[in-house]
């Protein structure tokens, strides 16, 4: 399947950058004729993945985060990578309401799953985490 466009961004693990990554993801996704609520859902999924990298991956310590975005004929692919502390048990982490931090809601992965068509999480303790999300679309109009 031919790739039509690609953009990747690498940024410091800082909460300010979650919003900037969101803007870039919205603008990249707007190549497809989504509706505003659909764009909103994509942004939420991206925010959850990127803020997980900031909060859990690096626990507010310094580190780099990558967001890669690729446009194919009938789907968009978003990959969020951190080289932080990793997840001990991915299956458990993806359960609704499961969080390692008592004050958090544990719904990040639930949002990613419900707003994207596919999500794949790979992680290794002490090495980092990769979250790959796929959003499909019917039409192919490109701006």
């Amino acid at each position, binding site marked *: 399947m031919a790739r039509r466009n690609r953009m990747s961004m690498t940024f410091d693990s800082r909460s300010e950058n*979650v919003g900037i990554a969101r803007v870039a993801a919205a*603008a990249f*996704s*707007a190549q497809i004729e989504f*509706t505003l609520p659909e764009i909103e859902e994509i*942004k*939420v999924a991206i925010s*959850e993945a990127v803020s997980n990298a900031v909060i859990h991956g690096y626990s507010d310590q310094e580190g780099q985060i990558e967001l890669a975005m690729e446009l194919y004929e009938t789907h968009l692919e978003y990959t969020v990578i951190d080289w932080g502390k990793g997840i001990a048990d991915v299956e458990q982490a993806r359960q609704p309401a499961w969080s390692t931090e008592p004050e958090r*809601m544990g719904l990040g992965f639930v949002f990613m799953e419900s707003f994207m068509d596919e999500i794949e999480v790979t992680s290794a303790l002490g090495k980092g985490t990769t979250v790959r999300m796929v959003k499909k679309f019917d039409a192919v109009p490109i701006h």
Partner: protein
Amino acid sequence: IGEIRRFIRDDNPIKVSRSTKELALKIHRTQEKLQGSLGREPTVGEIAEGLLLPVQEVVAALEAVQPTTSIYAQSTR
């Protein structure tokens, strides 16, 4: 929810200039107007066309009036 919203707004670190807010309002009005005439949710392209703006500027203007991090993440604090 109202409480959370107010908290987010008060705590929102981004100073949104008035014209960005006005643009966001215009985008939402165009969205509603098109929804009425098309009988379905308009696409970003249709909204951008109505406003003579690039699609990227439309989605970026909407982001600028929102808090930086996810409301889901913030509402737990």
